[in-house]
């Protein structure tokens, strides 16, 4: 991997995040105005101080004008980008590199998605005219990710009931965390029995195994690291940014076994090298990962190196990733409970890292690992499905490395 990384060269100095949920009374424009305004206020600057913008949205607007119009920005560079469910992280990546290379002093990454205006159940793909000759336009996202479950169960000798328990445990944990997050879409704890007995959506996935379909927006302001203390006493430094697009051969190549995301493994390896991490489970204070469906979070624990191969189900069951576990995962409730407005999710993950590393998370969901001295957080964002996805991993920290 030929990335050089920009470790400690830029920092986040302000963030904003709207509540996620069914915002019947607010448009994508409204959500953008809210998150952008919150971020600039957080950094103590005016919107005119931002030199360039990266807007991430999958389908809630096209072109830079999707941001410049609602805010009436004055002749500023606005890049509109899309990278499936990793769109928000991709916006951050663009803003960080622009500042790191010296092109701009202050850049903003903002993500937004307005999913609830469509009236459809679940996500609606943006169709490209096709020949009707593969399953991509037919299969839904939960069905696509549910392909992981039978394969994982078969490979590691779990019965379907045992695997269902593990999946329920992940949903239960994320709902416990979401119940402690006023911005989350779902703020109630859900019992294991309720999760297990919910109507099925696809394969082994019940309603509670699926992330929330919601509206929302999040934004971050990025400056050079040496300038960061002009804006805040507690900047969050970028340690690593890695994005990979896979070769899209998992549905072609008989070597792929549906128990891993090779793209995640590759992006994690790259990010850990950039950040100088050798033992992520011991070094990270928390991880925000792409729990679009519960089997995804299970497999991510192995792909990100938090659990050994075939062991994640045991670690999940033992509570290793709970709020008070050895490595809290998705302390804000994750996609599962916080909700998943596609273009905003990557920046929402970063928002939780921002709060936790700065000690600003509400006490009831503050992870103990930060007080215990850990200073690094990971965000992981993916788009696509098993065998064909894009994967993003970032590492951020509350202190520059020595």
């Amino acid at each position, binding site marked *: 991997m030929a990335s050089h990384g920009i470790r400690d060269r830029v920092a986040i100095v302000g963030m904003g995040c709207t509540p996620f949920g069914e915002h019947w009374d607010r448009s994508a424009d409204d959500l953008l105005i809210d998150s952008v305004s919150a971020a600039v206020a957080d950094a103590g600057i005016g919107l005119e101080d931002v030199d360039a913008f990266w807007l991430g949205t999958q389908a809630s607007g096209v072109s830079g004008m999707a941001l410049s119009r609602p805010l009436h920005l004055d002749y500023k560079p606005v890049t509109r980008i899309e990278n499936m469910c990793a769109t928000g992280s991709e916006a951050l990546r663009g803003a960080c590199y622009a500042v790191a290379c010296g092109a701009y002093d202050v850049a903003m990454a903002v993500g937004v998605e307005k999913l609830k205006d469509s009236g459809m159940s679940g996500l609606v793909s943006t169709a490209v005219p096709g020949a009707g000759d*593969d*399953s991509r336009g*037919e*299969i839904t996202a939960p069905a696509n990710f549910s392909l992981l479950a039978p394969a994982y169960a078969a490979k590691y000798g779990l019965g379907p009931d045992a695997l269902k328990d593990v999946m329920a445990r992940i949903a239960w944990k994320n709902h416990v965390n979401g119940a402690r997050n006023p911005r989350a879409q779902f703020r109630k704890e859900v019992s294991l029995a309720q999760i297990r007995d919910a109507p099925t959506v696809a394969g082994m996935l019940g309603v509670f195994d699926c992330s929330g379909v919601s509206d929302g927006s999040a934004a971050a302001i990025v400056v050079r690291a040496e300038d960061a203390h002009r804006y805040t006493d507690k900047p969050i430094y970028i340690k690593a940014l890695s994005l990979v697009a896979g070769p899209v051969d998992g549905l072609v190549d008989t070597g792929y076994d549906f128990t891993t995301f090779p793209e995640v493994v590759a992006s994690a390896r790259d990010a850990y090298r950039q950040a100088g991490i050798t033992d992520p489970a011991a070094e990270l204070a928390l991880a925000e990962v792409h729990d679009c469906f519960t089997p995804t979070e299970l497999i991510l624990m192995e792909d990100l190196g938090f659990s050994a191969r075939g062991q994640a189900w045991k670690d999940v069951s033992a509570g290793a990733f709970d709020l008070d576990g050895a490595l809290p995962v998705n302390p804000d409730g994750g996609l599962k409970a916080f909700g998943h407005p596609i273009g905003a999710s990557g920046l929402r993950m970063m928002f939780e890292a921002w709060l936790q590393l700065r000690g600003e998370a509400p006490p009831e969901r503050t992870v103990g690992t930060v007080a215990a001295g850990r200073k690094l957080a990971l965000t992981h964002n993916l788009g696509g499905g098993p065998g064909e996805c894009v994967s993003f991993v970032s590492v951020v920290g509350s202190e520059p490395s020595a």
Partner: protein
Amino acid sequence: MAGLLAYGAYVPYHRLARQDIAAALGTSAGRGTRSVAGYDEDTTSMAVEAARPALRGDSGLRGSIRHLLLATAAPAYLDKTNAAAVHAALALDRHVLALDVAAAVRSGIGALIAGARSDVPTLAVLADIRTGRPGSTDESACGDAAAAFVFGAPSATRPVIAEVVAHDALSEELLERWRLPGAVASRVWEERFAEDIYVGLAREALDGALSEAGWEAADIDHFAVAGLHGRACAAVRRGSGVRLAALTPDFADAIGNTGTAHIGVQLADVLDRARPGEKIALVVLGDGAGVLLLRATDALPAHRATRPVAEQIASHSAPMAYASFLSWRGMLDREPPRRPDPEPPYAPPAHRRTAWKYAFTGSRCEKCGARHLPVSRVCASCRAVDAMVDEPMEQVHGTVVTFTVDRLAFTPSPPMLVVVVDYDGGGRFRCQLTDATEADASVGARVEMTFRRTVTAGGVHNYFWKARPLREARATGPARD
């Protein structure tokens, strides 16, 4: 001398029990079951399924065909040639005249006679989907099926399996059965009106053909009579001087009268069983009468179809719900999922990928041998560019690697079963599993490919391939009670 070279039949997997119609509508119960084309089948897709086994493993025969006739009373499209889709799915030579012989049940025997008389190798495919208004005789007594026959000159590897001995056809303008374009059901005149007319027409045509052949009625070893006028067909069967033992089964109890396809299904069944030298007579009633006489050759026993009609009739689903049948035939408009309307296929991308989409032709890398489904210009294994050769995959079986049941996706028959298939000899593809229940979807299940009309969206039929469970021959289907 030219003659019949190969054949195949296709009876769809699904069955509707007549007692379930009666129970739903409060009418008197009929006996047995009828065959039902799947929600993802039409006459075009069933024609492909009937012709595939006839051409299987014989590229010489496939390449020799110069004329394709698709006979059906239920064409999937008007104005557009449905036989062109069959031609594409079978990967026939480009220089083939592919034609629809459409609209009437008589088209079936018409295509057979035209094929038998043709001076170029001809594939005649007969397919039909029969229904009527709920509670009608057509709905319960009819069924769905297809059959395919290749006529032409023999080659070293492909002998004549039945000689064409004689034929005759009479045409008669007659308001007996008719249907306006777009109507859901046929209309018929009072049944007794045409009975005597048909019996007379059949006698005249049969006498003409027998005289040409120099046969007596009593010489006939296999006598098949088809048509939608049940009383006339019964009268011809009984009253033509043919030996009782020569009357072929009409499959009324198991699959029903399959209309345009029925004479083909009966002929295929006869060819599954006939001994060398036996005399076969086919009679079809409808707007006249058509007769074709054939004689089985010594080569027949070694060249019978791989899936006999009797085996396909015996291998079937548990009887389906009558409500599902009505839904599949468009007579019960059920609430769809809260999902976007399915996408139709777009013409330019479909045309660019005809060999893949219609014939399931993948590609194989000449450098490293990796198979690609769908076709790919860059090898997923060794990254060689434009080093691919065609790799026909429609006959290759596979094993399910993982699967799911998609309860959210749009499908005319929820839930959608999706499997990831690894093919014998290499290659992987994810597709729908059809003719199956959730119990059939499991890791390790064996599957074969089948040509389907996956969906009709925006007024466009989408044809593509699905997997279906590889079912071994069974003596009987699942018991009902």
